[in-house]
């Protein structure tokens, strides 16, 4: 099932990218379904004073517009705040800032989210809290050695409340991931590192929500959700096109992208 949030998130991504005249659109669209699943009943978002809230780390921070959209649509960011996206003096830059309501950690430097998430999950265990930590990474981010340091640590300590989601769109900044630096066999690597690996269609919001709901976050190994996605999902001319890692839309491209959303289920 696709939530009402899903279409709205994509609309906000298109509207704000166009208004601000910025790129990273393909990356945000790539995770839109994952974010829609998380923010429609999975994540227990809370104020920073609520220690028992779930933690969410958007480690691939350059896709933050999808999260800003979800935070706005679920009442954590005002419309006025959203309108400052990528403006002067904004907290809503390309990469998220912790000063924002609903944002637990700043990000932007790839490979830092999972170590921090491991610390969050360790803290939850030490304080006897059932809250969970979700870290959303890109597949190319797993080029970073620190991801594997954290993978070792989390498995060694059986941090079952840690859920790493990999947005596996097979594409990175300068080309196809398999051509830049092959990570295959990707799932087998995580299995070998001692994680529970769950493969899922990362553009199927219902399947994602069902999977998140079924994870045993109270015992056993940490979880790796291997979410296979399409870069730029939902806008035909952006799908799997590297240029939409960078480019802003012109008027015609924006109109077409908006029109295409009307045809989506």
């Amino acid at each position, binding site marked *: 099932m696709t939530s009402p949030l899903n279409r709205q998130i994509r609309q906000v991504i298109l509207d704000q990218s166009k208004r601000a005249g910025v790129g990273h659109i393909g990356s945000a669209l790539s995770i839109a379904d994952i974010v829609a699943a998380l923010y429609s009943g999975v994540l227990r978002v809370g104020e920073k004073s609520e*220690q028992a809230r779930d933690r969410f780390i958007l480690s691939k921070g350059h896709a933050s517009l999808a999260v800003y959209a979800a935070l706005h649509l679920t009442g954590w960011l005002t419309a006025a705040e959203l309108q400052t996206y990528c403006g002067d003096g904004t907290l809503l830059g390309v990469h998220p800032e912790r000063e924002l309501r609903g944002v637990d950690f700043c990000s932007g430097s790839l490979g*830092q989210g999972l*170590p*921090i998430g491991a*610390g969050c999950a360790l803290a939850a265990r*030490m304080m006897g809290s059932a809250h969970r930590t979700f870290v959303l990474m890109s597949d190319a981010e797993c080029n970073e050695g620190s991801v594997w340091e954290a993978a070792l*640590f989390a498995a060694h300590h059986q941090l079952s409340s840690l859920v790493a989601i990999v947005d596996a769109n097979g594409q990175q900044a300068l080309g196809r991931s398999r051509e830049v630096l092959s990570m295959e066999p990707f799932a087998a690597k995580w299995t070998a590192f001692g994680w529970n690996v769950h493969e899922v269609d990362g553009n199927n919001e219902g399947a994602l929500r069902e999977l998140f709901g079924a994870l045993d976050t109270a015992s056993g190994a940490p979880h790796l959700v291997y979410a296979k996605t399409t870069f730029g999902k939902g806008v035909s001319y952006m799908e799997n096109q590297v240029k939409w890692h960078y480019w802003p839309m012109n008027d015609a491209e924006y109109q077409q992208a908006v029109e295409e959303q009307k045809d989506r289920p």
Partner: protein
Amino acid sequence: MRRAFFQTLTKLADEDPRIVLLTADLGYLALECFAERHPARFFNVGVSEQNMVGVATGLAEAGYLPFTYSIVPFSVLRPYEFIRNGPVHHRLPVRVVGVGGGVEYGTNGISHYGIEDVAAMRALDGIAVVAPADHLQAVAALEKMWDWPGPVYIRLGKDDKTSIPGLDGKFEAGRLQQIGHGRDLLLVTMGSVAPEAVRAAELLAEEGIACTVAVVASVVPAPEAELGALLRETRLVMTVEEHVPSGGLGSLVAEFIAESGIPCRLMRRAIGSVSDGLSGSQGYLRDRHGLSAARLRDAAREAINRRAPSPPIS
């Protein structure tokens, strides 16, 4: 310094359940006291310093007071960007502890020297930088700084025997500690090389040259008021540090003199080039880089003899 430090941390952890100690697989014969007394709050994360800082960031966000431990370059330089984006940018109370500040790991070679750490940490906005001069001051610094509201970098030495006469284990954030008072020369020093500066002052006194020694353990926040007062009453200041000349204590004093318009000459004694690969004991290296008491004395004597006599002290 480090044994006394971790014995004190172990006691503090008896009282405060927020204290957690993380090590990247170093600290033999130093961390056992904590590990045995607080096993549930001690984690050897393995040889993975970036992950250690990340984990500490997550723990601190949840309300813990995590201390990370390794040898200075592995504690600071390897995970530097994790420190910058983690505890520093998030203003979280992680305590980064580095042992072997300077060239204490002498024969281990340049990979183990901690000679750029203070510059690196001073460049970050909002992390306190503490470099105790002996084990008594290390304990005092920990007792004052363990619950400091933001992140802290603590630069330790291994020497648990030397204690500096006149320092008496005093430490205060934003303050310096003054040993002796003489207006011919101001020696400003930090960290485990401080005993060389104190000894140099004694050697100079035998020659009739009166020195003040200022021990700056609180590098950030810097002891600006006291430093300014001491600089204004001398014509010659020598900074003494086991650190590269750029960005450390000598730079701090140079910046202060320049911005305050104080008419005083600065000589920076620091670790020069180590790129020739020659290593040796800490004593050898101090002498080689002009940081032994005798070489500090010689340099000071020469500088004093070369300049015009000081004006009468008002």
